[in-house]
């Protein structure tokens, strides 16, 4: 598989949010606006690319029995580095993402891609997978955030579309995240089924 094919495969066919349903905790917790959705997605993407590359690089040195602890150490290191950098140079962003930055460690996407992809492929492919999965995650989150923001506070990326007092609060709250995610998954599956039909016909 070449580099770009891997990106496409990881981002679209195995989209972490819409197809694999991985990383649901931050997906539901920090998508109350498009900007929040995107920034958390990008933070995760950064960690994912680094951890995928590192794990793929050391995969032959690590015995099978301790591979999970090693993966966790690698992932946790990158997450902690990211958090320290954010605290130092982007404190506002760090505040708005709050507890969800350290929680990237337990995001299933990272361990999932490490176990399912990076431990079996070379560094270049693993980086491609990191970019693809991260991109798929980021786009899905941004979309979810934009929909929730539009319905909940009447704006997209802080650009006001209609008065905020008409926004349905439900979509800003957690239940709205579940409902909106359900509908987006349904639409995604519908479009996917349609395109498969077209290809096979």
């Amino acid at each position, binding site marked *: 598989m070449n580099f770009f094919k891997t990106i496409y495969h990881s981002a679209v066919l195995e989209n972490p949010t819409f197809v694999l349903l991985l990383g649901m905790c931050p997906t539901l917790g920090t998508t109350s606006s498009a900007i929040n959705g995107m920034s958390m997605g990008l933070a995760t993407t950064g960690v994912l690319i680094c951890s995928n590359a590192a794990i793929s690089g050391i995969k032959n040195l690590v015995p099978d029995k301790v591979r999970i602890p090693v993966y966790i150490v690698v992932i946790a290191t990158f997450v902690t580095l990211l958090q320290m950098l954010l605290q130092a140079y982007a404190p506002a962003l760090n505040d708005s993402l709050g507890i969800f930055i350290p929680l990237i460690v337990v995001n299933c996407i990272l361990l999932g891609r490490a176990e399912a992809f990076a431990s079996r492929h070379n560094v270049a492919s693993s980086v491609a997978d990191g970019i693809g999965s991260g991109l798929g995650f980021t786009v899905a989150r941004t979309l979810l955030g934009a929909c929730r923001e539009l319905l909940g506070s009447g704006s997209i990326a802080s650009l006001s579309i209609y008065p905020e007092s*008409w*926004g*349905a*609060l*439900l*979509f800003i*709250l957690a*239940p709205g995240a579940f*409902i909106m995610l*359900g*509908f987006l998954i349904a639409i995604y599956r519908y479009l996917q089924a349609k395109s498969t039909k077209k290809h096979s016909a």
Partner: protein
Amino acid sequence: MEGNRITVTGSPHVSAKRTTQSVMLNVIAALLPALACGIWIFGWRSALVAAVTIAACMLTEFLCSRYMLGRRDSLRDCTAIVTGLLLAMTLPSSIPLPMAFAGGVFAIGVGKMAFGGTGQNIFNPALVGRVFLLISFPVEMTTWPLPLSPDGLTGATLLSAMKESGVDAASIDVAQMAIGNMGGSLGEVGAIALIAGWLYLTARRIIRLVIPVAILASIALLAAVTGNSVVIELLSGGLLLGAFFMATDYVTSPMTTKGMIVYGILIGVITFVIRHYGSYPEGISFAILIMNGCTPLINKLTRPRVFGERRKR
């Protein structure tokens, strides 16, 4: 439709003249007195709100079933009208009309069609719409026009007044409550009208006595035990409307008598707990939705033994 196919459905197999449509028309008839009472107390805007929610429900039902489920005659069974009417009755008559419309769209679109349409929904669609509006627009949904006041004054409902400002229960005129002269949603205030509608439905054997009686009895008992006024507890808020017309929804309530009793009692208990210990003044809509979610479990646990089947040890 493909007429030469045999339709296979699960039990119970009962052959009767009763159709969904006739049941729903009876429910509508039973709701009319309470709606009339709402119009009398809060003015013609009540009727306008009802018209908007019904239109929103019918439109959503039509569009979803036509273009997503591929069914043509989805409006004929009148369930969308009942949902719209019930939703309107849980709203304050002063609610902005676009919000009422959004509530109707949400009730049918998310509460019903997302689960596959009539008969497939887990939660009562009208209550899904109401809770959506309550959570989304808390200001508009808790601003109640005062009864019989033409100049648009607003005030608190009895339950919220008792909870937040400590209104004394003894100062409340029960006779005025019974005819509906109190603040509240446009369809929940007329206790006598609601009871009349309930008696009609029960007499026509559209609904059974079990669920409403279980709800009301458990609340009355809890009120008596905790030293609250039983009459005020029963007449205030949306309790009667919910117990008579929403908790008894066929699709979302248990099928067995034993199950209905459990379901009714738990609705009563949850309502009472939310009213007295929760942060919302009224809890009947949350209680019914919670128990809607438990209905499949109740059905499973109270499933009657097939004749001749041995009892499991």
